[in-house]
């Protein structure tokens, strides 16, 4: 049986670079904050590079780095009770030009709605509903069974629809600055641990 081959450094770098836009999109949807997401991506790039011997050529770089990013994000949340938040700077952006009879969907509402979901549900609907991953790919990234992923997506959709339809938001912006600062501290701490 052939031993799995690692990628040459130049190819690894190229594939990692191509994954960056997706990592940023995933991180921003997950955290709801542009700066926190970009710090998460930087952290992910460092960790991926340090572990590049474990990446198997021919497998999905995007999925591999998504696992690193989501593990970093959730372990950060567990350690310091970081709560994901939403970015008020983009509050006025309107998503998906609506039909004339429909009210527009604002990015801020969607982000706030996502933050109302449980972590598992938020991750599931971002991967499948926003990122276009199959249930199988999303289950691999989230390290859960395919059935569990389907169930999470279904519950997330229903909950999000109800939240957006009824405008049921909690005061997600309370303590926004403190939470963001805490998240950044977490990420910087994690980077310092792995940096030489």
């Amino acid at each position: 049986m052939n031993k799995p081959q690692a990628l040459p450094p130049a190819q690894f770098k190229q594939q990692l670079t191509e994954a960056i836009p997706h990592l940023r999109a995933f991180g921003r949807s997950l955290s709801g904050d542009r700066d926190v997401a970009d710090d998460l991506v930087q952290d992910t790039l460092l960790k991926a590079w340090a572990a590049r011997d474990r990446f198997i050529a021919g497998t999905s770089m995007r999925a591999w780095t998504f696992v690193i990013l989501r593990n970093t994000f959730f372990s950060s949340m567990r350690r310091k009770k970081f709560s994901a938040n939403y970015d008020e700077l983009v509050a006025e952006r309107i998503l998906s030009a609506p039909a004339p009879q429909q009210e527009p969907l604002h990015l801020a509402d969607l982000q706030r709605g996502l933050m109302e979901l449980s972590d598992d549900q938020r991750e599931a609907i971002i991967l499948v509903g926003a990122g276009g991953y199959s249930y199988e790919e999303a289950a691999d990234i989230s390290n859960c069974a395919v059935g569990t992923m389907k169930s999470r997506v279904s519950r997330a959709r229903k909950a999000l629809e109800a939240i957006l339809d009824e405008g049921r938001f909690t005061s997600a912006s309370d303590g926004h600055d403190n939470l963001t600062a805490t998240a950044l501290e977490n990420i910087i701490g994690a980077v310092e641990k792995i940096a030489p």
Partner: protein
Amino acid sequence: MKSKEDMQERLGLGLKDMYSSVLDEPLPDDMLALLDQLEENDNSDVNSSRPDENE
């Protein structure tokens, strides 16, 4: 009155929009610089561990 189908459609499009709008942004210079730096560190490690050919 908003129907369930309308909401589902708006939600689906909104999620895809939210995600794809980030894909269209230019790559941040600091991330590209970080990868260049990591690659450079690797190369210098390899060079420093290689025996001197003149020896």
